[in-house]
């Protein structure tokens, strides 16, 4: 396989594996947990290394996973006993773990090769150099295999507990009353986050694991309400951004993970602006539309109230609208044009008259309103 393809493949695998726990983190408002766990696994890795003396041992992943879970446990404990909100306990606990890790490294591992910064900053460019050998056969990049296994584990976890995860995410109380144990699901999810973060730090570094875990799900959430579709969009955007980021890095001759994350950021911002239903632009447009719809209806009802009365000649005059509704001239002109286009009223030399269709519409709206009450 060519190295470019291997790097893109690995990045895509990281992204797909991260998406699964990431979606639930985003939906459960726990996105920052990915950052906390990503840092707090350091002492786990260091202690695992002291025991195994081998940086590639699977035991390291296990140790780091345990450190991640321990962090979650401590955070929960602090939440329960100290007078603080969850975000404060997260932000306080992971630096403590990280500090312990750094101190352990500097005091006891000075002459061996654990760079704390290499844990924070992985480098995808090195992925093709680290091969997996099986019985003397070159099986391809090791990190890709590790991420593949993690992806499969995450998929199995998701398939087994989809119903539980979904329900406890959207309706915790109902999940608890139906006998699902929210605590168990919480720790299951956190195990998945820890293992994925540990496995991925080799490739992208623990800080950028946050991007892979949070941004594709955030993009997906801005695009759809359907949980299953979220997985699809999330993985898709992860893969597209990985490819885009790789070529950006090639173009600039820069850090690949950094470039992919930058592309993630651009993609997120674009989706935030232009998502068809939930984007900023369409929300603005919708608000504008609602403003006109409301104004049009208000005008029709006003005309209906005063039609065939003595006050009609005053109230229903075209130039009375600004006073009555406190509308800008341009706005009321636009409202009138819209209504005329829809054939709901006519303008008889300054006096506004409801058309037959207009009267019908007002009657309908009134009836709908009163029957709703």
């Amino acid at each position, binding site marked *: 396989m060519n190295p470019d393809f291997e790097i893109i493949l690995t990045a895509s695998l990281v992204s797909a594996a991260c998406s699964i726990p990431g979606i639930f983190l985003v939906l459960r*408002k726990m996105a920052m947990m990915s950052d906390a766990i990503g840092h707090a696994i350091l002492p786990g890795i260091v202690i695992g290394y002291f025991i195994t003396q081998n940086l590639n041992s699977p035991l390291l992943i296990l140790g780091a996973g345990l450190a991640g879970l321990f962090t979650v446990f401590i955070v929960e404990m602090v939440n329960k006993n100290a007078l603080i909100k969850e975000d404060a306990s997260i932000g306080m606990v992971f630096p403590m773990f*990280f500090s312990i890790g750094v101190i352990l490294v500097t005091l006891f591992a000075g002459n061996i090769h654990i760079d704390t910064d290499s844990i924070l*900053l992985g480098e995808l460019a090195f992925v093709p150099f680290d091969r997996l050998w099986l019985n003397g056969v070159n099986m391809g990049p090791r990190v890709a295999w590790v991420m593949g296994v993690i992806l499969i584990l995450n998929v199995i976890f998701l398939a087994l507990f989809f119903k539980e995860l979904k329900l406890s995410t959207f309706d915790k109380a109902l999940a608890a009353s139906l006998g699902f144990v929210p605590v168990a699901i919480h720790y299951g999810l956190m195990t998945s986050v820890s293992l994925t973060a540990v496995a991925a730090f080799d490739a992208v570094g623990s800080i950028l694991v946050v991007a892979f875990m949070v941004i594709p799900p955030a993009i997906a959430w801005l695009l759809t309400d359907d949980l299953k579709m979220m997985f699809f969009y999330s993985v898709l955007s992860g893969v597209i951004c990985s490819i885009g980021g790789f070529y950006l890095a090639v173009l600039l001759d820069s850090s690949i993970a950094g470039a992919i994350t930058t592309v993630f950021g651009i993609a*997120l911002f674009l989706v*935030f602006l232009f998502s068809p239903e939930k984007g900023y632009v369409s929300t603005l447009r919708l608000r504008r539309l609602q403003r006109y719809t409301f104004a049009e209806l208000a005008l029709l009802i006003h005309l209906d109230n005063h039609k065939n009365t003595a006050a009609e000649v005053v109230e229903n005059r075209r130039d009375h609208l600004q006073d009555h509704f406190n509308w800008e001239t341009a706005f009321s002109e636009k409202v009138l044009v819209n209504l005329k286009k829809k054939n709901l009223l006519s303008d008889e030399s300054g006096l506004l008259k409801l058309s037959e269709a207009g009267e019908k519409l007002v009657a309908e709206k009134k009836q709908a309103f009163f029957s709703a009450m």
Partner: protein
Amino acid sequence: MSLMDYTVTVISTGAALLGLITGSLGTLAVVRKQSLIGDSVSHAALPGIVLAFILTGSKSPLIFTMGAIVVGWIGTLIVQFMVRNSRLKFDTALASMLSVFFGLGLMLISYLQKTPDASQAGLEKFLFGQAATLMRQDLFLMLVMGIVAFFLVILFWNVWKVMIFNPDYAQSIGIPVKLFDALLTFIQVIAIVIGLQIVGVVLMSAMLIAPAVAARHWSDKLGHMMIIAGVIGAVSSFAGATLSTQIAGLPTGPVITISVTLAVVFSVFFASGNGMLWKYISRRSRKRELSMKLLIKSFYELSLEHEEFSHPHDISVITLRLPDKYNLAGCLERGKNDGFIGNNGNKWFLTEKGLEYARKNENGGELYES
């Protein structure tokens, strides 16, 4: 190194100053439930520093600090804008901003330096702080920025209080909330950027949060909390920094972090008012008082059925009037020590003092008062 050494003095003083500023200002972030802002702003400072270098070509700390403040501030404003205008929640927006800005910084650095190894060598200082390179000018810079931040805090003190605890009310009385929100964020960004040089990106979060959390256990008032957090931050950072200079190879940032965290642990357990030990003691004494009132009340009610109030009763008669899990032996002992009751073998009676006590508490209302 000796304690009087120039470097040691500068590092320890710098750490104390940092602890004072971030601890105190961090209180505002914690009570706004935006504790994690420290983590994201410190990461966003990276591209700020790199961009400042690209634009000016200067390596002066002042330029770097300005770059970090501007970009950190912009990043946080983007987060707030996205949260206000989409379904994304604060945590997701924050985590996205943190990683994207950091990734952008990484990309820019590696683009500037071309070789990945060189970039990581320079980055290490940024990630973990470089307390050893701290100079007197840096302290001066920290001091000036700290004074600016505190000046803004004090100037708009009432505005902050209303905004933090009742934003809707603040809006309704005509305070331009969005503007002041941005200003408050700016103040916090200053505090965060100040600390980067000493503790680095990863640990900055704790410097901002931990002193405030500790202070929360000592006081319920915002002003007091800020002062206490400042003191706790200063003392524990000073202790941590001084310790790290005395043991070779001990990194300053992590030791300070552990030191601040220990201050939190101490406060959670031993703080007056909200500490666990304090609460335990006051709960216990309240419980004891309640059970004493109950005991004397039983004696009093029994005594009403007899001619004289000091008519002796058997323990079994008293027990009937008390709840199941009542520690009778202990209470009788204490009641006797207090002079409320007396005994003749197994027969117990109410004393004059006990009668007075029972009458004082007769209407029950006072039972719940103290």
